[in-house]
């Protein structure tokens, strides 16, 4: 028995090791680039390490801080607007009788179900005419439209997973519909809503194509900075920016299951 198990660990370790290399090799490469002062072919590792590029990125005159602030402002506004739209919609979709309910749910998927590049091109043209191009509001509107599917679908699932009996119990002892919603349903759905907020926040933080057409060059978000630095061949700055974008994404991946419990997850899209 022991011998057989030991033998099987060989291919297992080989495959898992290869997978680990495929996943962490490129990530390690990114980390190395953020601290590489001097690195050229064919040296496997950088020749000099240091943080001088970090200083340049975070210096008051560097545009990374400005981009970081822009990105965070855009993402926060996107979350606020998306949730303001998604909470009522999610409540109606999960609790109230709606005609064409499943078609409405599908409608929110449309921005994800069509290639959105031609759409952004035309939004940019339209926004240009009404003066929204190159403004924070313009970028936020684009991000909200794209993130609404997460906001609405997860909000709907979060409300659906709250036991309706609790709400009815509150109603039967005299709470009005708004009070029952505020004191019972909303707090119980809060973890799910938080998950949808994080999803929307990350979608906005990482969004490139829409910001590229609607925002650039006036609204310079982090992905746009990454792109400009990368095309200019400045791999250190690009890698540091990429790392800034990477941290929240990976952090969220590690905790997502705490917010999105299985009972909510199983109701997404229904």
């Amino acid at each position, binding site marked *: 028995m022991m011998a057989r198990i030991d033998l099987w660990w060989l291919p297992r370790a080989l495959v898992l090791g290869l997978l680990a290399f495929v996943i962490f090799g490129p990530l390690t490469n990114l980390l190395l680039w953020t601290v590489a002062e001097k690195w050229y072919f064919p040296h496997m590792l950088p020749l000099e390490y240091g943080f001088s590029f970090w200083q340049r990125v975070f210096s008051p005159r560097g545009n990374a801080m400005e981009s970081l602030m822009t990105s965070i402002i855009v993402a926060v506004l996107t979350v606020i607007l998306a949730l303001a739209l998604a909470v009522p919609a999610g409540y*109606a979709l999960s609790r109230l009788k709606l005609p064409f309910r499943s078609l409405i749910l599908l409608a929110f998927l449309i921005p994800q179900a069509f290639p959105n*590049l031609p759409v952004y*091109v035309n939004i940019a043209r339209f926004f240009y005419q009404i003066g929204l191009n190159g403004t924070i509001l313009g970028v936020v509107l684009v991000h909200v439209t794209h993130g609404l599917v997460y906001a609405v679908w997860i909000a709907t699932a979060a409300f659906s997973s709250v036991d309706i009996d609790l709400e009815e119990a509150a109603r039967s002892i005299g709470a009005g519909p708004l009070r029952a919603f505020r004191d019972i349903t909303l707090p119980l759905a809060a973890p799910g809503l938080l998950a949808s907020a994080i999803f929307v926040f990350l979608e906005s933080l*990482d969004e490139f*194509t829409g910001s590229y057409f609607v925002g650039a060059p006036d609204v310079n978000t982090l992905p746009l900075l990454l792109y400009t630095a990368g095309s200019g061949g400045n791999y250190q700055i690009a890698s540091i920016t990429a790392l800034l974008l990477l941290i929240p994404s990976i952090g969220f991946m590690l905790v997502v299951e705490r917010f999105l419990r299985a009972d909510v997850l199983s109701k997404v899209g229904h």
Partner: protein
Amino acid sequence: MQKRLLAILLVIPALVMIVLFFIVPLGASVVGAFVVGDTYGLGNFSKSFELYSSDMIFTLLIVGVSTLLIGLFSIAIGGYLTLGENQRAVAVLRWLYRWPMFIPFIVVGQILRTFLAKNGLMNNILVSLGVLTPLQTVGFLDWRGIVIAFVWKQTPFVTLLVAGAMASLDRSTIEAARNLGASRLRILIEIVLPQITGTLLVGLILSFVTMMSVLSVPLMINAQSPTMLTADIAFRINAHGDYGVANALGMISLLLTAGVALIYLRQSVKDRS
């Protein structure tokens, strides 16, 4: 009746967003594709095919090959997570596979551009290990780089869906087949796979559409010709201000996706009923 009105009022603002900032511009792009000068015509399309027909095939091939590989890998990983008998290996794999899932495409582009380049870390390692000499190294920053980037980023997402569907299957048929001596590969192909085709299809189609609209990866990894239609659209706008051809290319990529999206809609309607 009043309640129904309330429900509609609660949903309307969110729906208006979708209509105003997605469906209307989508319509504008379709109409714009036919605008030639002051009249309507097919000029943009003939110009698109003349200039970019190789890019159209290139796009379909890249996205098609990527979708296929994503499907294969996600079945393999999901299958092992479901049928693997060594708990420790399953746990390691479960921890390992999802890392790239939430990494933004633009970061994937940057990471792989430095990793796969002719003088990138991958070749540096191979040279240091003595597998290659510096003269033998080749960069992967062409169609292969795009495929690698897409597969790297999208496989975890599809795997998550597939593994979830596999985990919720009825274990008894699997156990029964196992007791009768069926190999795990056979169980995966003949028992597990047929029951999760719907989920797999949904995941692959969402990935297909996503890959069709990603601009950053082709721009960062391979912007020279032949490249993907998304890069061509951006080029028509930025270099020429040519909305006609850009919209025509957009509509062509819409049509390429439409066939695939149709399968998705039919699938999800079927699931719902």
